[in-house]
């Protein structure tokens, strides 16, 4: 097979697998509504956690910090469901046996997770603007970049935790230390005077961890 034909095959494998995830979600409507409700609920909780008499600048930093925490927890919530169908129906064995590159499974799942996160943010960011502070372009760019990193690393770790005895309990423990740089980059991009270096940092994180996750996924799913 020529190089371009192989690439086309890979792309169509990814498209089929990602479509499967979208279809599953469309039919069951398990994950995305839960993520939406969770992120709005946590924003309401945060309102009561932040004192009302902060200075405008402090309130801005605190509010954006909480927004990023809310996004991280929402992503974890979504990721704990990422491999549930694969595990319960033993679908993962079939996927691993399928004559496609195993990294295509990772890429498709990552794309699906990014799509779910985008849907959650489509509600969360306007709600945040309504409740707390206006959202500007750099925050939106930071969220787009953070989605990639979170989904890339999170998909590998979700596959790991789906194969463990403790299941959903394990994922937050595995993901939180790895997500700290994303939160730093995100908050910095939202509130710092020069957001460019934080956005560049997020790009670096995405690139490094996407490459490792892409190449490591195969070792996680094969028996």
């Amino acid at each position, binding site marked *: 097979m020529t190089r371009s034909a192989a690439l086309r095959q890979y792309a169509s494998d990814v498209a089929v697998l990602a479509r499967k995830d979208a279809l599953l979600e469309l039919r069951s409507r398990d994950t995305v509504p839960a993520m939406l409700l969770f992120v709005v609920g946590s924003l309401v909780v945060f309102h009561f956690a932040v004192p009302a008499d902060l200075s405008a600048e402090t309130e801005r930093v605190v509010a954006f910090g909480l927004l990023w925490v809310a996004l991280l927890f929402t992503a974890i919530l979504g990721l704990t469901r990422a491999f549930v169908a694969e595990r319960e129906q033993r679908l993962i064995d079939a996927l691993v046996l399928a004559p496609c590159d195993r990294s295509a499974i990772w890429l498709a799942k990552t794309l699906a997770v990014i799509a779910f996160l985008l849907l959650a943010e489509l509600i969360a960011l306007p709600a945040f603007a309504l409740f707390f502070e206006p959202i500007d372009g750099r925050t939106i760019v930071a969220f787009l970049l953070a989605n990639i990193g979170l989904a890339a690393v999170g998909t590998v770790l979700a596959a790991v935790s789906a194969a463990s005895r403790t299941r959903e309990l394990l994922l937050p423990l595995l993901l939180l230390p790895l997500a700290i*740089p994303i939160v730093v980059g995100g908050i910095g991009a939202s509130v*710092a005077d020069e957001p460019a270096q934080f956005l560049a940092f997020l790009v670096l994180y995405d690139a490094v961890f996407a490459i490792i996750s892409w190449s490591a996924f195969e*070792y996680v799913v094969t028996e």
Partner: protein
Amino acid sequence: MSLRNSLGSVFAIAAFAFLIASIALAFYWVPTDADQGFSQRIFYIHVPVALTAYVCFAWGAWKALRLLWTGDKRYDLESYTAVHMGVIFGVLVLATGAIWARISWGVWWSWGERQLVLFLILFLFYCAYFMLRNSVDAGPRQARMSAVYSLFGVVLIPISFLAIRLAENFIHPVVFTRDGPQMAGSMFFVFCLATVGTLALAAALYHVELSGKRLDLKLKELRKAHS
């Protein structure tokens, strides 16, 4: 096997000699630091231990890479033992760092000290590594998952360090700064001595722990075969 055992003994003896020498020199020979006074001498324990912890994590990741590369399962135990040692030395870094912070600045913890914050993140990360190992059934899959996770860890070290530096731009300015690399020749000499000693100690512990874990594994296999 006997060669391995003797290598462990060599490391143990070297660790003993170098550590005793460096502690003695650090207390009686090295000049007292002009800024921080006597308490600066914890530097000769704190920093070598931190370097050793990094070396252990890197060694664990290297063995993890070898495992994924070759599929040889003995690398799993070696990687696990290296990470185990790294966590022990990492806890020592946090403890000595807390003592130093208490004496220098009057607080047990300072978010302004990058190295300590980094070790806290790494501590969380590698605790999760142990959780992962414990909650997956032993076998080639557990070995590969742990290997992938420890590779994540070694990439997380520089990324986190960068993140902590960047975070200072919006959280707070750097309040506390420690001496730069400019130190007197005698200080540097004792520091190198202590580093070699700590590395030898880690290597000796690694050998002891590894042969212990190998024995455990062999015993389990024998029991399985017997029953």
